[in-house]
C-alpha cells in the first residue's frame, strides 16, 4: 500500500470511529465546547475525554513508549481534520495533551512522566496554564508570584495571583511560572511548578467575558504548595521551560482549527443564501476574500508543519499566528454583517448564536498567545532583525 493509500485508509478509520462513538449520549456534544463556548457541558465532556482515551485517540502524536500511537505529522493532521469534520467537541484535555505532555517529555524526570502522563493520556486529569498575571501580560518576564522553599518539607510555597487562566475552574492541575529567587528581575530566577488546583491555598474566581460566558479565571495563591518533585527542570530554569512550552502551541491542531473555520464560513454562506445577503456584491466580495485567505492559511500551515529551515521559511512561520487570528477576527465581523440587524437580536437559533459568540470570542484571538502588537514586534525584531523595543525603567 502506498503512503497516500494508507493515509486515506487511516482517514476512513478515524471517521468511522467518530461516527460510531460521537452518538447516543455524546451526540449533544457535537460542535460544542469550542472557543466562546468553552465551559459548555463539562461533565459530559470529561466522559468524552475518557471515551477518546479508550479508543486511544488522546495524545495520538506522543511517542509509543508512553502508550500512545506515535502518529506521524501527516496522520495527526488527518486525525485533527476528521475530528473537526465529525463535529468533535472542544477538547478539555487540550492543554495537557498539547502543552504539558510535550514539555514533560522534553524536560521532566522519569518520576514526573510516570506520575503525570498517564492521567493526561487516560483523560482523567485536566490542566490549566498559569502564566499571565495582572502586571505581567505581554511582558511575561515581569511576573511577581513568589515561590519560597519550605526547608522542613522541601515543598515550594506559592503566593500571588494568576489571571485569564482558561478553564482553571474545570481543571485539576495548573502549571505555574513563579519567581523563586528573591530580588531577581525579568526572565532570571523563575521556577516552573506543577500544582494541584484543589488545595487549601488556592482560590479560583471565574471572570465574565464580553460574550457573557466565563471560560477564564483569576487564580489566587496564598501559601499554596507544590511538592519538591513537582519542579520541572531546576529552580531558575523556569523561563526556558515556559518558552519551550509555548513553542508547542503552534502545532498540528492548527489544521483541525482550520476545518472549524471552514465550517464557520460555510454557515455564514448558508445564512447569506437564506436571507438574501448573498445578492449584495460587497458581501459577495468579502466572502470570496475570506475563502482566499483561508486557502492561503491552509498552505501556510502545511509549509510550516513541513518544517523548512531557511531564513525565509522561518520568517513565514513567525507570521502564521498573526495571519490566522486576524483572518478569524474579520470572519467574526463578516458573520454579523451577513446577518444584519437580525444578528444582534438574541434568540435561540443555534447557528446565529454560534456566529454571535464567534463575533465576541474572535476579539480574543488577537490577544491571547501573544497579542497582535507583540506578534508584529517578534516578526520585526526576530524575523527582520530590526532594532528592539527599548524597556522602560522600573
Amino acid at each position, binding site marked *: 500500500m502506498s503512503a497516500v493509500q494508507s493515509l486515506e485508509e487511516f482517514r476512513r478509520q478515524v471517521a468511522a470511529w467518530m461516527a460510531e462513538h460521537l452518538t447516543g449520549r455524546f451526540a449533544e456534544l457535537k460542535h460544542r465546547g469550542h472557543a466562546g463556548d468553552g465551559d459548555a457541558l463539562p461533565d459530559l465532556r470529561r466522559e468524552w475525554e475518557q471515551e477518546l482515551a479508550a479508543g486511544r485517540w488522546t495524545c495520538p502524536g506522543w511517542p509509543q513508549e508512553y502508550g500512545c500511537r506515535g502518529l506521524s505529522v501527516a496522520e495527526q493532521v488527518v486525525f485533527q481534520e476528521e475530528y473537526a469534520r465529525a463535529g468533535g467537541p472542544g477538547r478539555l484535555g487540550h492543554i495537557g495533551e498539547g502543552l504539558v505532555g510535550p514539555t514533560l517529555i522534553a524536560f521532566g524526570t522519569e518520576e514526573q512522566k510516570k506520575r503525570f502522563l498517564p492521567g493526561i493520556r487516560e483523560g482523567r486529569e485536566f490542566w490549566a496554564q498559569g502564566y499571565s498575571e495582572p502586571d505581567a501580560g505581554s511582558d511575561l518576564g515581569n511576573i511577581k508570584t513568589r515561590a519560597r522553599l519550605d526547608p522542613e518539607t522541601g515543598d515550594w510555597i506559592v503566593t500571588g495571583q494568576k489571571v485569564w487562566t482558561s478553564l482553571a475552574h474545570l481543571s485539576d492541575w495548573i502549571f505555574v511560572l513563579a519567581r523563586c529567587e528573591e530580588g531577581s528581575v525579568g526572565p532570571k530566577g523563575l521556577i516552573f511548578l506543577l500544582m494541584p488546583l484543589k488545595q487549601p491555598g488556592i482560590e479560583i474566581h471565574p471572570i465574565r467575558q464580553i460574550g457573557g460566558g466565563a471560560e477564564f479565571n483569576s487564580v489566587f495563591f496564598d501559601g499554596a504548595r507544590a511538592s519538591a518533585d513537582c519542579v520541572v527542570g531546576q529552580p531558575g530554569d523556569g523561563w526556558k521551560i515556559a518558552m519551550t512550552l509555548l513553542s508547542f502551541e503552534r502545532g498540528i491542531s492548527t489544521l483541525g482549527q482550520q476545518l472549524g473555520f471552514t465550517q464557520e464560513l*460555510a454557515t455564514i*454562506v*448558508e445564512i*447569506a*443564501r437564506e436571507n438574501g445577503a*448573498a445578492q449584495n*456584491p460587497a458581501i*459577495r*466580495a468579502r*466572502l*470570496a*476574500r475570506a*475563502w*482566499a*485567505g483561508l*486557502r*492561503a*492559511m*491552509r*498552505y*501556510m500551515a*502545511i*509549509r510550516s508543519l*513541513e*518544517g*523548512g529551515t531557511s531564513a525565509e521559511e522561518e*520568517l*513565514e512561520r*513567525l*507570521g*502564521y499566528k*498573526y*495571519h490566522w487570528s486576524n483572518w478569524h477576527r474579520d470572519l467574526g465581523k463578516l458573520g454579523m454583517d451577513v446577518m444584519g440587524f437580525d444578528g444582534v437580536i438574541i434568540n435561540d437559533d443555534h447557528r446565529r448564536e454560534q456566529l454571535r459568540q464567534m463575533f465576541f470570542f474572535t476579539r480574543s484571538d488577537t490577544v491571547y498567545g501573544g497579542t497582535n*502588537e507583540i*506578534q*508584529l*514586534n517578534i*516578526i*520585526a*525584531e526576530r*524575523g*527582520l532583525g*530590526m*532594532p528592539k*523595543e527599548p524597556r522602560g525603567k522600573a
Partner: protein
Amino acid sequence: MDLNFSEDQRSLRDEVRRLLNDQASSAAMREAAEKNGGFDASLWDMAAAELGFCATNVPEAFDGLGLGAMELALLLEECGRRLACIPAWSTIAVGTPLIVSLGSEGAKSRLLPEIAAGSYRIAVALPIDNPQVAVRAQQSADGYVLDGAVSLVADLPSATLVLVPARFEDGKLGLFAVAPDDGLKIGSVQTIDLTRPFGALKFEGVRVGADARLDDAGFSEEALAQALLPGRLGLAAEQIGAAQGCLDLTLEYISGRVQFGRTIASFQAIKHRCAAMVVDLAEARSLLYGAAANLNIGASEIEMEIDALGVLAADVLWKVAEESIQLHGGVGNTWEYDPHFYFRKAQATAFMMGSSDERLARIAAQVIDGAAA
C-alpha cells in the same frame, strides 16, 4: 501535499537569483526602462541562452527540462524581484504553455525545441486586460486569413514570435504563429510600467500559410482558459517577487536613515508596518506554492485558487509599493529612487489578465452558488 522545495528547486532559484543580482541591477533596470523601451537585450540573451530559462517548462521530449508550475513560479518571482526587463512572463509563462497544451505534435516538434533553446521571444495576441479572443480566422486556398485588432499586447515590441488565438466562423478556436514582420501592423503603446513594453496589433486580411496554424483541429474557450492558467499563476509570481524586492529595498533604506537620533527602523510604527507586509507576503506566497502544486496535478479547485492568488498578489504588491514610497519620505517621491518603478508595476499589473473584482466575483459564484460552498 509537499510544499517544501526540493534540492533541485532550491538550486534553480539560487542560480536565477545569482544571475539577476549580478545582471539586473538597479542601474541595468533603469537603463533598459528609460532608454531601451523596457527591454534589456543582453540580459535576455544571458537568461535565455546561458541559463536556459526558456527550457524550464518545455517537455523533455522536446528538448526541454520538463519542469512544472513550482519552478515556473520560482523563476518569475526572481524576475519580479529585480524588475528584470525581459519578456520572461510572456514567453515562458504564457506562450510556451499555449503551445504545449494546444499545439499539434507536429507543431510542437517544430517549435518547442527552438523555444527551449531560447530562440524566440514570444508575445501572445490577447488583450492583456481581458484575455478574450479578438482575432477572426478564415480558411483560404493556401492557408488562412486573419482579421481583427488587439489593442494591448504585452512584450510585443521585443517579440520575435507572435501567437494568435483566433476564432473561426463556426465558433471554434485556432492558434496561429506569425512573425512580427508578416504584414502585421504594430503600434506602440506607452504605459506607466516602464519595465514591460506593450504594443497594439492590427490584422487586416493578413495571409498566413497552412503551417502557421499550430493546433490540430480547433479547441474550445475552456481549453484556452486552461492553457492560460500557468500565465495567470506566473503573473502572480512576478507580482509577489516584485513585492519582495520592494520590501527588501525599503528595509535597507529605513535601517540607514536616521531621525531623532535613531534609525527610522527603530520606530515601532514602522516596524509594525514592515512586519504586516511580511505576513501579507507569506500569505500570498503560500497560496502561490499551493496553487502551483495543484496546477501540476490538475486539482479540482485550481481555477478558484488561481483567482484567489491573483487577488492576494495584486494586493500585496500594491500595499508594499505604496508603503515603500511613504517610508522613503521625500526621496520616495523622486525619480532617482527606485520605489516608483515598483509602484508603477503594481498599478499596471493590477488589471492584467482581468481585475481583482472579476476574480472575487468568480470565486463568490463558486463559494456561494456553486459546489465549493
